């Protein structure tokens, strides 16, 4: 999995690529935390467009970022989630606490 970060509209956009399992979730977390420290942004948008696999480690990683950002009144959003991965989001109740978008530009505007 490759991860790319971009800042737009004060939002860190995390472009995930490949399979988001525990191995990759750890790498994403490390890189993201380092990036957060430098950039001081309060919002993160995870783009799932190119994610081909996710298990509960992905849920944990996103939930972890949500909890950290909550402390500083920040927000976490997710965009472009496809069917199989959607089921996992649904099962774990993440839809209730995190903002979901279907369109990236809408997400960047509204998050």
């Amino acid at each position, binding site marked *: 999995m490759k991860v790319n970060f971009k800042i737009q509209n004060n939002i860190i956009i995390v472009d995930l690529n490949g399979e988001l399992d525990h191995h990759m979730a750890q790498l994403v977390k490390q890189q993201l935390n380092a990036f957060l420290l430098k950039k001081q942004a309060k919002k993160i948008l995870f783009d799932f467009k190119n994610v081909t696999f996710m298990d509960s*480690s992905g849920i944990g990683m996103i939930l972890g970022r949500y909890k950290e950002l909550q402390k500083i009144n920040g927000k976490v959003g997710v965009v472009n989630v496809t069917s199989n991965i959607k089921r996992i989001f649904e099962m774990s109740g993440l839809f209730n606490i995190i903002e979901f978008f279907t369109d990236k530009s809408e997400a960047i505007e509204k998050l």
Partner: protein
Amino acid sequence: MDILNEMKLEFLSVSQNESFARVVVASFAAQLDPTLEELADIKTAVSEAVTNSIIHGYEDTIGTIRISSKLYKNKIEITIEDYGKGIADIEKARQPLWTSKPELDRSGMGFTIMESFMDSLEISSFPGKGTAIRMTKNFEDKSSKR
């Protein structure tokens, strides 16, 4: 029921083997010609169990994980074992959102996902001895389709 094929895999509890384990089981299961969704379900369940052995079973040590799998007509059986810490309270461990390691960003959804993606799930575990997860999944019967 007759066993059509059988395999056993053994590997180290390092996180780069999570995707390796998924590929191995998925490519073995592919012999039954499953749908893409059935394959994705199996990959996810295997990933959960293997990750648990790495994180919870062996914690910061490196141990051996064993996977064995049997193929039947329209059915796969998968067993994933570690010889690590074990689970003291299996009832509690199965509950959605319950995790012993929230500090490691665990969501506590592993067993819930395995249960809902597979058709059966059995957990046997002995503290200090290790954990074995036995799962089965039934595939859609293609022979009845036109």
